[in-house]
């Protein structure tokens, strides 16, 4: 990866800039993970190893409820957004229509819109149509912002598919529905899996939008953690954060593996 002949390497100090960059990126995370195993009450002073904070997390009904909410929201939003993304991607490929580029841009736009804007807009929208804030509104809002995350890998996979395959299926007496069901969809699976996992992770760790549109009783983990931090950083926060990080890393790794397998075929 590092080519010593790259002329940039002749700049003195470049190596240390790089070290600093990675330190800046990862040291806080390492510290957080390490401190979650800290025996000391004061979260920032290391005394010894212990599982206490994890036990505390698992014994805390509020945290468990928040985790449960997070899972419900992420699962529902993932299913819905992936469904929409598959439909949109299939509809967009292999066909040309007026305004196609505009549509493509619109699908990806939520990635660029400041989250706070989406959050406020969603809140105003739900209030305007008189929807009671709660799990449902969180699911709806999450579905919307998860769509582009699910859409991009699916679209990429679909564009990489040989259009002759669908033609071959049609040639072999498969109706459009059967062509989709028996050929396009199975070949799309790696894209769908990575899309769904991205959507899931995005939903799991969303804070801003959830904070605005979640009513009482619909608190998710990130919102709950934020609430805990306001009363001081406890080792419990470190423990939950580490758990959340673990889930994220696991999912990303899984999606990567599935993606690679799809490439190999």
């Amino acid at each position, binding site marked *: 990866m590092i080519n010593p002949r790259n002329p940039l390497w002749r700049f003195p100090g470049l190596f240390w800039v790089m070290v600093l960059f990675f330190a800046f990126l990862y040291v806080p995370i390492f510290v957080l993970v390490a401190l979650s195993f800290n025996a000391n009450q004061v979260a920032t002073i290391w005394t010894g190893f212990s599982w206490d904070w994890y036990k505390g997390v698992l014994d805390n009904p509020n945290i468990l409820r928040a985790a449960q909410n997070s899972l419900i929201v992420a699962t529902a939003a993932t299913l819905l957004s992936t469904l929409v993304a598959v439909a949109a991607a299939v509809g967009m490929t292999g066909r040309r229509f007026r305004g196609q580029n505009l549509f493509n841009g619109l699908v990806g736009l939520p990635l660029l819109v400041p989250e706070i804007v989406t959050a406020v807009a969603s809140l105003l929208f739900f209030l305007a149509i008189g929807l009671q804030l709660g799990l449902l509104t969180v699911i709806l809002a999450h579905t919307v912002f998860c769509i582009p995350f699910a859409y991009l890998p699916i679209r990429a996979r679909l564009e990489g598919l040989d259009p002759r395959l669908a033609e071959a299926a049609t*040639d072999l007496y*498969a109706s459009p529905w059967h062509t989709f069901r028996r050929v396009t969809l199975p070949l799309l699976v790696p894209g769908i899996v990575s899309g769904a996992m991205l959507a899931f992770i995005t939903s799991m760790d969303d804070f801003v939008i959830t904070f605005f549109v979640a009513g009482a009783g619909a608190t998710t983990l990130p919102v709950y953690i934020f609430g805990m931090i306001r009363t001081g950083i406890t080792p419990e926060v470190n423990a939950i954060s580490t758990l959340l990080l673990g889930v994220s890393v696991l999912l990303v790794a899984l999606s990567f593996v599935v993606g690679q397998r799809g490439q190999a075929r």
Partner: protein
Amino acid sequence: MVYGEGSERVRALDRISLEIGHNEFFTLLGPSGCGKTTLLRLIAGFEQPTEGSIRLYGQPLEGLPPYRRPVNTVFQSYALFPHLSVAQNIAFGLEMLGKPRAEIAQVVREMLGLVKLVGYENRRPAQLSGGQQQRVALARALANRPKVLLLDESLSALDLKLRKEMQLELKRLHAETGITFVFVTHDQEEALTMSDRIAVMQEGRIAQVGTPTEIYDAPNSRYVADFIGETNFLKARARGGVLLLPDGSSLPTPVHTPDGEVTLAIRPERARLSADGSGISARVKDVVYKGTDTIYLLELPGQEPFQVRSQNRLGALQLVRPGDPVGLELPPEAVRVLKE
């Protein structure tokens, strides 16, 4: 057939009129971009003709989507389903037709035998060689017993040896199945050896249709003569039943030819060097020994370079060297008069 709209319009096919017989091995032959694939795609139903119509055993195909046409295609790129096994690939069409399981299993077994892939049924396409994939593509299309099988340059990706094998295999399958084959190639030798009839295409039109012998022996234009095999062209003038060459020599016309400027097409193997220097006077430019044949490159005054190919029979070796003056003999049956 026109692709695209407005300024992007491409007329890919123009005034095509063809009739292909039952169980015929019909070949579309032409250079790249002449519209061969387009014609197949029209028959398969992937494209709709902008004008005109296509009929299959009397039944008009207009408006019939590809999945309702009793026609199957062997794609140039094979287009095997990568997520299905060999057996599942072959069974695909029959499953879509709703055939009973037992029958499908039976046909798949038959097809595997036909294309000599028994024992490979559970492999994925990615685990097969190019030639094996090709045969799976063939089996997948043939399994449905289509009325017409379309093959788009199906052999062009194979190396020479495999290609010769597959050519024989295709001929055998054609004879055994009784299915009509429409075969696309840009290889003239392949077309000549495989086909019952050939249509030579030129820029979206059909230049000539005929049996391999007709196309080879009686090309109707310089284009066809040039595309199929090697041909010498001579400028001449027809007058009163004789062909006058610019150097003053003359030949009898093989068929009645109206007076005027004509082009003569002569195959290299049908011309001869005369033993005694009679005939059209020429000068040897080069002699190329090719094992079974020797090729003499001649210069004729006021003409394009001329080739004579003569078989190296025992004792037939002619001692001719570059620079020697020779006589060129053109038997009347060897001369084809072209209008252009």
